[in-house]
């Protein structure tokens, strides 16, 4: 079977839509392979607009890992905006890849990477535009497998009726294992059809196949139990963990789009996992243990990536980049290497306590001294103990003082509202903290033009965290606390004008909360709201709380549950959680104990530096902490002779 490009038909529509360049592909380092030369064909999707999706590291890594296989091709697709969706429906143009503009419905697998649950409606649009039946149960051999990945896949129950499978954890080895199974199956002539393929995938443990599990409910709406409905299907499906990141130095040839994207820089992941133990942080909990990439590999990836992309900024990515055991050496080594070039370095996430001024100076040596960002997350000392963000007010003041004294004029502080046990007073402490920051900053810098921006959003409890049992704060109380904080800062006569406040209202958090701790019944809400036209929920101008609530009203009409039941209800230890059969490695009792410690304001340390706490991950998953130092030395870059300079002066 050969597959035709839909570009000739799409091309007619592009002059009539906003930013047509986002649909044409043509990225540097993109790969297009002949269809007939391959056995397994993957389409990867990031379910948001192209400009948000294209920089995504997960998609870029898997794209390259898959395309390196001779028997496999991999292309990409992104969410199309409503203007193009309408034209595509009118003109019968299906969801397409940007690489070769092949119809998504022709691929073997559609892998969708969910960084957030707010991409669910966009996945439905793509499936539907691709001509794939919306419900997995209605699909046959001619349709791609729809596979969810990314952090939200650790509880894919809300989308379980739309997906064929979900992959938990690191994708590099998992996609290759899935490809092997699909390849064998196709080579054998697809015996037993789609059902057999899904059985093979589920039995291998590589992928969670929701259709092979039954969920029973108690009369009050809670789950009685989740159990496999076929022999050979595992009771629990475990996450994947890539050990030794030096063996997986992807992306080797990062995609550089022609269209503008949200991250105009090259990213290099310097470690995976985080054991700081912040109790609200799902990413930190589900990506354990910490696995560092060595300084040498990082330096090679930076050099190679710059040469292949032409980017001027390098972002050193991780969940808390200043925690790399050799971050000082890496920052200094890279700053030395790229001195007097236009290349600059950035650390997107740094902790207050891991930050030091030497590191900041190295980072800004070749670049601009833009604002510094820190995330104390909680306004009061007490609430920071609850969430285990072990940062004292003293740490914060010391750090910002050093920053203002070294020439930074702007400090951004991130906080959350609606944390467990929180009272108004905990949030109002943020105003006092910001006041102290400005006071210290003015003294340290001797200037009055320094600023502090407070950014605050509503907390959403997530699965596989100690707060998975917690009641989410209702949006009315969240908003009222945010307004009180805003007013308190405005009333600060002395420094109020130096403090900016940015806050996000509580309503989107309610929907995120419904989806993230949702079970299979929530799928009906997603379908209903999507049928009502809801798209692009991550964009405030497209998000509609009222549509979601109206859809929930309809979808839950015959159920003993409602939106509040999923969001503002506290759970107890005996309740079967919708994601209990999905194994992040974390021991449920350990999580419960940590939740109890949170309520008692007891902190827990980081297992990189103190003995193991038996969170369960390493024992259970056969993994271990991989940290340096390696004591390697970053050598200066050899000078590469220019290919364009005239050999003898003209």
């Amino acid at each position, binding site marked *: 079977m050969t597959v035709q490009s839909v*570009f000739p038909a799409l*091309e*007619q529509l*592009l*002059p*009539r839509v906003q*930013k*047509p*360049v986002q*649909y*044409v*592909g*043509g*990225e*540097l380092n993109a790969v297009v392979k002949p269809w007939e030369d391959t056995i397994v064909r993957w389409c990867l999707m990031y379910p948001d607009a192209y400009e948000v999706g294209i920089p995504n590291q997960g998609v870029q890594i898997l794209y390259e890992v898959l395309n390196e296989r001779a028997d496999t091709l991999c292309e990409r697709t992104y969410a199309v905006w409503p203007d193009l969706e309408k034209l595509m429906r009118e003109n019968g143009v299906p969801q397409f890849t940007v690489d070769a503009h092949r119809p998504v419905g022709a691929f073997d697998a559609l892998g969708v990477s969910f960084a957030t649950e707010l991409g669910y409606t966009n996945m439905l649009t793509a499936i539907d535009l691709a001509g794939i039946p919306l419900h997995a149960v209605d699909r046959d051999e001619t349709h791609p497998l729809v596979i969810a990945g990314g952090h939200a896949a650790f509880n894919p129950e809300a989308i379980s009726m739309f997906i064929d499978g979900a992959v938990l954890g690191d994708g590099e080895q998992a996609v290759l294992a899935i490809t092997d199974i699909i390849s064998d199956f196709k080579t054998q002539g697809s015996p037993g059809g789609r059902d057999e393929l899904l059985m093979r995938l589920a039995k291998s443990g590589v992928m969670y196949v929701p259709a092979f599990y039954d969920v029973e409910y108690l009369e009050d709406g809670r789950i009685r139990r989740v159990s496999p409905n076929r022999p050979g299907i595992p009771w629990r499906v475990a996450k994947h963990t890539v050990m030794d990141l030096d063996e997986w130095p992807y992306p080797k040839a990062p995609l*550089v789009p*022609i*269209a*503008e994207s949200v991250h*105009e820089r090259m990213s290099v992941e310097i470690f995976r996992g985080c054991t700081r133990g912040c109790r609200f942080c799902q990413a930190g909990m589900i990506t354990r243990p910490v696995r560092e990439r060595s300084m040498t590999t990082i330096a090679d990836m930076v050099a190679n990536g*710059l*040469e*292949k*992309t*032409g*980017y*001027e900024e390098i972002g050193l990515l991780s969940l808390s980049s200043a925690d790399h055991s050799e971050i000082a050496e890496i920052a200094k080594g890279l700053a030395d290497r790229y001195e*007097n070039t*236009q290349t600059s370095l950035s650390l997107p996430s740094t902790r207050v306590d891991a930050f030091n001024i030497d590191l900041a100076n190295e980072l*800004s*040596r070749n670049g*601009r*001294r*833009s*604002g510094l960002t820190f995330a104390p997350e909680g306004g009061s000392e007490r609430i920071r103990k609850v969430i285990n963000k072990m940062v004292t007010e003293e740490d914060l003041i010391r750090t910002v003082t050093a920053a203002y004294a*070294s*020439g*930074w*004029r*702007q400090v951004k502080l991130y906080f959350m509202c609606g944390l467990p046990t929180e009272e108004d007073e905990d949030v109002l402490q943020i105003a006092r903290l910001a006041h102290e920051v400005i006071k210290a900053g003015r003294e340290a810098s001797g200037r009055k033009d320094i*600023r502090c921006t407070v950014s605050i959003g509503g907390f959403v409890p997530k699965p596989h965290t100690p707060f998975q049992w917690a009641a989410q704060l209702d949006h009315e109380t969240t908003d009222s606390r945010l307004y009180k904080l805003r007013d308190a800062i405005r009333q600060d006569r002395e420094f109020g004008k130096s403090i900016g406040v940015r806050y996000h209202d509580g309503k989107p958090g309610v929907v995120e909360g419904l989806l993230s701790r949702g079970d299979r019944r929530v799928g009906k809400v997603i379908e209903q709201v999507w049928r009502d036209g809801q798209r692009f929920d991550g964009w405030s101008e497209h998000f509609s709380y009222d549509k979601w609530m109206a859809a929930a009203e309809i979808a839950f009409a015959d159920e003993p549950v409602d939106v509040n039941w999923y969001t503002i209800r506290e759970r107890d230890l005996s309740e079967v959680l919708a994601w209990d059969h999905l194994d992040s490695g974390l021991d449920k009792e350990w999580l419960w104990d940590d939740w109890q410690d949170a309520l008692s304001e007891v902190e827990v340390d980081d297992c990189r530096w103190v003995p193991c706490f038996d969170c369960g991950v390493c024992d259970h998953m056969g993994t271990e902490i991989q940290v340096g130092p390696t004591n390697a030395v970053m050598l200066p870059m050899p000078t*590469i002779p*220019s*290919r*364009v*300079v*005239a*050999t003898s*002066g*003209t």
Partner: protein
Amino acid sequence: MARDRDPGREIIPAVQKLRIQHAKRDRLRFTSHRDFQRAFERALKRAGVPMAYSAGFSPHPKISYANAAPTGVASEAEYVEIGVVQFVDPEKLLAVLDEVLPPGLDILAVVEARTPDFVARLEASHWRIELPGTPVATLEQAVESFMSSSEVLVERMTKSGIRTFDARTAVIRANVESGADCGILQVVVRHGVPAVRPDDVLAALKKVADFAQEIPPRVTRLAQGPLLEDGWSVGDPFTLDREATQA
């Protein structure tokens, strides 16, 4: 907000300027001017071109862009000038830059800048407009009434609101040809203020002849440069630089 850039940073002046002609083809015709600028600057880095940078807090590479074709319009004749801090071989630059740019953004010619007032030399553009589904006869009729008018006012949305201007006077020549399943319009348009673009010409044609056009046109800028002695041919704007180099 930010500390000043290291005042000791060395500013190296440009020793040479080069003029580059490039194309914007096929699917990359949907590239906007800003998109092209970013892609081009990154390509210069990948090609290892020793760019000159502006001074100041936020240094920019020395690049001047002239008369970019609109988004969605293909072109065989876009022009860019760059300043470099080491002498660059124009032929090598052509080859390497073309290699590092994606197919569709293609480098066609490079000359060393030896003459002043380059932009002023770009007097007119030659556009080829394919109109799928429009019969040649209909198009010919429209062109005839357009060319016989002394003025055809059209409207265009600009940043400062709707602007009305004449689209006729700038059009020096208009020919109709027949293509596979389309009428093809070839127009030579003199540059001016406001610039009359291909869509303005089409709007004017629709106004005088009222022909419906369902499928979006495919527009290509074939040439951009000085008007030759015949008064309507568009010449190569690099001719003067080439002659100066050989001299």
